[in-house]
């Protein structure tokens, strides 16, 4: 907020802060542009093999071609759809399981070693199993996305639930509150920041799961496109897909950040 009452010194200080921030942004942008320019020059001068490394102009041409054929939106759409589906189901089921673990100390103790082990298993190793069980279908891809994200969701949420100040629970109990009321009035609302943190982690993990799923069991999506491009030695197609993947992950992360700003409004 600009304030006319600030002293000249303070205004100068604020200006220097803005300048520094601008400098950081500028350098970041320059670095990005620099990398692409260097890549382009190196490929066209033959310093590196453009067949293997591709080059920015060819990548752009690949993107434009895909867009003209209408393929771009189809593949992007599939990947986003599968990721959002896996992410939503994984998060919802994760929260539900975390609630059960919170509700029953017995259940939580029984499940503890299983969760620890499942967490340390590289979930992508389960990919072929899903393909055999579910076929090369969207279900297998979504199952992969869920598998990668759900355990972390459960663990983060359960830890969050357990860390809620026990005095807040005691307060509800002094009013004669039941366990269900403790859950609804304290545990869930107090864990909203944890939930947001879990969402941020999960959106990335779900994307990992989706891409691996598409590698194994799909005829569409960016993961499929990457594998296909690799098989026909079309590196420009592979690179173009990877770049689009970057864009997708940034957009999904940004969506969660928007949600965070809405939900956290008014909170300390």
């Amino acid at each position, binding site marked *: 907020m600009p304030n006319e009452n600030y002293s000249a010194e303070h205004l100068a200080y604020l200006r220097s802060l803005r300048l520094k921030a601008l400098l950081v942004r500028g350098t970041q942008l320059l670095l990005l542009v620099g990398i692409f320019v260097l890549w382009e020059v190196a490929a066209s001068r033959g310093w590196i093999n453009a067949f293997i490394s591709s080059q920015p102009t060819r990548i752009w041409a690949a993107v434009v071609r895909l867009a003209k054929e209408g393929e771009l939106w189809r593949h992007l759409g599939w990947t986003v759809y599968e990721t959002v589906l896996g992410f939503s189901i994984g998060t919802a089921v994760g929260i539900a399981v975390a609630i059960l673990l919170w509700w029953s100390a017995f259940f939580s103790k029984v499940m503890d070693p299983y969760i620890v082990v499942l967490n340390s298993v590289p979930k992508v190793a389960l990919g072929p199993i899903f393909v055999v069980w579910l076929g090369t279908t969207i279900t297998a891809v979504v199952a992969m996305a869920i598998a990668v994200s759900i355990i972390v969701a459960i663990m983060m949420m359960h830890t969050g639930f357990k860390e809620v100040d026990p005095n807040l629970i005691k307060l509800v109990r002094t009013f004669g509150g039941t366990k269900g009321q403790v859950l609804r009035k304290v545990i869930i*609302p107090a864990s909203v920041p944890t939930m947001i943190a879990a969402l941020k982690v999960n959106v990335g993990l779900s994307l990992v799961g989706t891409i691996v799923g598409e590698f194994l069991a799909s005829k569409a999506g960016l993961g499929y496109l990457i594998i296909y491009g690799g098989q026909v030695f079309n590196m420009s197609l592979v690179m173009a897909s990877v770049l689009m993947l970057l864009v997708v992950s940034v957009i999904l992360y940004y969506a969660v950040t928007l949600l965070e700003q809405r939900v956290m409004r008014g*909170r300390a």
Partner: protein
Amino acid sequence: MARVKLENVGLTYHTEAGEVTALRDVNLTVQDQEFVAIVGQSGCGKSTLLSLVSGLLKPTQGLVKIDGVTVQGTSKRVGYMLQQDYLFEWRTILDNALLGLEIGREKTQERVEEVKEMLKAYGLGGFEHYYPSQLSGGMRQRVALIRTLATKPDILLLDEPFSALDYQNRLSVGEEVVKILRERKKTVLMVTHDIPEAVSMANRVVVMTPRPGTIRSIHSIKMCDEGLTPLQTREVPEFRQYFGAIWKELNADAK
């Protein structure tokens, strides 16, 4: 008329680390509209005693009775104010004050209006839609009191209610709270480790021994009976005598 009665009450906590007898042989009667303060060293079982009266804990020995009926669990008749305000940061002031009514499923339009009136009467009008983080410590404590009063308990349990406030606020908030509780004719059981606070507010001060806590002595304070406010009580000459006597007893146990 006796409102709260503890008969040979004892409580032992069992944990994996062992057992701790927090209270033993406690006998105490609190009369209607009386303000009883309990002082004792930390760990002597003061909070445990309040939890017993509130029904959150069951005594392992003896009986706790309210109006002659043995306490079986929490009751709408008893309001419990914890050591800190524990306002929910995600709720507005009004919604915080309505928490008890919500939990007891008594949040009618009429009760909401009453709570709004109370907020106004106690200097919180216009803050209804603020969040707790935007309020001062003293204001937050008043919200916590209104939250407790909203369910209309006639017995109030206060566990070191002013310990989170700085000295200046303690005096002024204490003054207001006593005024409010007297106006509303509440029966009060307050725990504190601050002797001047106890003497300035209470009709009687109960001194407890260290753990396992039991009652060492009970002091009747005449200023409260005479209707003096806490700040006025602090001014009378006898205040120092009460303070001295209670301080000596508390220190007799300290090694």
